[in-house]
């Protein structure tokens, strides 16, 4: 496979994963903002997904509508859904002969959806949940079409490598931001709504209720988001998948690059697998999560060096 093609597939997939998680996160945060306005702040969301300076952040204040418009539609925000879908589609456009027509059509249609003038109006005046649901549905179509139509080859492996790296980073970031708010008061009587929304934003609420049954405790939430291999958004689950799909790229060529990346992925996966909530608290959650995301970024650079470099 052409390096450029592998590169594009990897980034297309990363951007779509990021789009999906941002949309879900927005939906739940919006619900939360309607629930308990005194306790709720958009600040962490803006911090991870925006690139506003203090002044810009102050300008949209805690206005949910403005924030949704900024994160969904703003042309100037590189992480806006608008821009990410555009980039994902641009990547797909350059590799149409390496993806199925169904997949191309799906991304192309999503691209036309985020460009509709109506969307802006709807976010401003209509029910935002309806709008976000419609966009989330486009993401689900993307994942479904990928699963059903994409040929099981090198291309899909690179897409999955990108997808699970991105997912691990997203889950780590959300955990970091949400829990760091509480860092000094972990023993505070748990704010049920807060935890509930955190879990819902990564679709982990039902699983949590079933698994832990004990009400909301920070240690259980950390356990689920980091280590629960039945939870498809946990960091360990993502790293297992990353490991699995990368191993399929093994071939007689490029043995040096393969060995390097494989080593890094294996090492990181073991590190997470053999951590526990206790060992994490010794290091400190924030520092631990930073180590993980830094190592994932390093894996990305190494992939880039050995697999994607073409110009």
């Amino acid at each position, binding site marked *: 496979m*052409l390096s*450029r093609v592998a590169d594009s597939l990897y980034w297309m997939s990363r951007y779509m994963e990021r789009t999906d998680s941002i949309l879900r996160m927005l939906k739940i945060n919006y619900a939360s903002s309607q629930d308990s306005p005194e306790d709720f702040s958009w600040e962490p969301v803006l911090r991870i997904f925006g690139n506003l300076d203090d002044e810009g952040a102050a300008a949209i204040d805690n206005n949910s509508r403005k924030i949704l418009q900024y994160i969904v539609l703003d042309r100037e925000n590189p992480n806006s859904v608008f821009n990410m879908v555009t980039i994902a589609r641009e990547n797909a456009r350059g590799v*149409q*002969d390496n993806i199925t027509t169904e997949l*191309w059509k799906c991304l*192309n249609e999503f691209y036309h959806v985020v460009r509709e003038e109506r969307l802006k109006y709807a976010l401003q005046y209509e029910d935002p949940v309806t709008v976000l649901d419609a966009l989330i549905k486009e993401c689900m179509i993307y994942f479904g079409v990928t699963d059903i139509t994409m040929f099981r080859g090198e291309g899909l492996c*690179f897409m999955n490598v990108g997808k699970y790296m991105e997912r691990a980073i997203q889950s780590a970031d959300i955990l970091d931001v949400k829990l760091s708010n509480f860092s000094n008061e972990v023993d505070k009587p748990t704010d049920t709504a807060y935890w509930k929304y955190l879990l819902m934003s990564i679709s982990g609420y039902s699983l949590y209720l079933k698994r832990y049954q004990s009400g909301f405790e920070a240690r259980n939430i950390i356990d689920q988001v980091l280590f629960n291999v039945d939870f498809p958004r946990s960091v360990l689950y993502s790293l297992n998948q990353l490991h699995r799909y990368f191993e399929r790229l093994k071939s007689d060529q*490029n043995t040096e690059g393969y060995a390097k990346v494989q080593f890094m992925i294996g090492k990181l996966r073991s590190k997470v697998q053999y951590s526990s909530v206790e060992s994490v608290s010794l290091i400190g959650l924030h520092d631990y999560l930073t180590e993980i995301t830094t190592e994932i970024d390093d894996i990305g650079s190494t992939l880039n060096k050995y697999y*994607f470099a*073409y110009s």
Partner: protein
Amino acid sequence: MTATDLFHKYPLIGNTWDEMYDEDRVRAHYQNVFNSLSSIPADELSKKEELARGLFMSQGITFTVYSSGEGIEKIFPFDIIPRIITASEWDLIERGIKQRLRALNLFLKDVYHEQFSLKDGIVPIDLIYSCPHYLREMQGVNVPHDIYVHIAGIDLIRDHDGTFYVLEDNLRTPSGVSYMIENREITKRIFPDLIPQNYVRPVTQYPNILYNNLMALSHGQVSSPNVVLLTPGIYNSAYFEHTTLARLMGIELVEGRDLVVENHKVYMKTTAGLRQVDVIYRRVDDDYLDPLVFNPTSVLGVSGILSAYRKGNVAIVNAVGNGVADDKAVYVYVPEMIRYYLNEEPILKNIPTYQLGKPDEREHVLKNIHKMVVKKTNESGGYGMLMGHAASEAEIEDYKKEILKAPRQFIAQPVISLSNAPCYINGKAQPRRIDLRPFALCGPNGIEIVPGGLTRVALKEGSLVVNSSQGGGSKDTWVLAK
């Protein structure tokens, strides 16, 4: 509005061939479509037009226009009423194009080798050496099977009596074939059953024929040749076509930055290291192909690719240097080439053409410029053209000055009126000018022309310019089996 209103009061334009009407009678080969369309309520037709637009958009059959930093997707306008060619008309077209291509291929081989036709005075030598597309880098270079023109898109038009004329020979990187294929797919969707009812010949085999021809060009030392399509990239207006052809042939779509030349061999950069490339179907013009030899600022090409080509380590399609044969001044001599190389009479006519490099012809043209179309010999896409009957005096004066600066670079032709075909415009069928570009594929086993082509339409009322860059659209083009 009742259905028959669609063709009611369809205006026949005087002294012009109408594809559907013979005086006020519908031609036999259009009768079936006439009946079918007439039985469809008018608002249904508008819905079909809307459906067609939606299908083009959602499949991304679009080109991107960049304005204020943001890309806007445009579709190449599509007219829903098909253009129909009878079996006997097609027979003539097919024989005529094959004959012309055989002669042009022989001419290119001749020009870049012994130059018999120049020495025998069939084509003036100075015309060749003054042609910017004549590439001395290609002199003496052998190309596989002596084929230069693997893909041709020869443009045909019809004069007032229905006679076909060759307007120009596109022998470099003709585009539009994806619309031949996609327009047919759209017609299948918007007019169910209409195609089988009319015994329309299929066009879907085009990519297979092209693929087999490309494979046949490999030097034969590898069991599975690596064939790629070289595109200028996603910003090119024909990018959709490049990606469609690559997909339909199952070959890799590459950009210049994906390729590298080492030791006179071309490689592509893959996730498993370098892999040699054997055949390149390039959609990058000669000028941009190799910055070491041609335009040094090009980032679309590959440094050193021409040396690999000259050594025979890679086949390039179409051959490099073909522009010398579709130069608009060299065009004048194609009928003579047919007589010289094939000892046959030309089947398809040339449009009478004046070369402004010749003093007496120049004088005649300048005197009668209102009746002429003047074109630059090395431009295409409808650029740099003067329509004498439509231009203002000031435009003509400016253009005359341009001509006198470099007369060799201009030719003139009498205004040919182009045939009309009915188009669905504002809820009514209205006559608009059309041309025809069939796509001919030349391989070691001969020339094949897929029955169909690109019919371009001048959508502006009264316009004679069909180029997409000048407000043109296209139609599905049917060749009937009987």
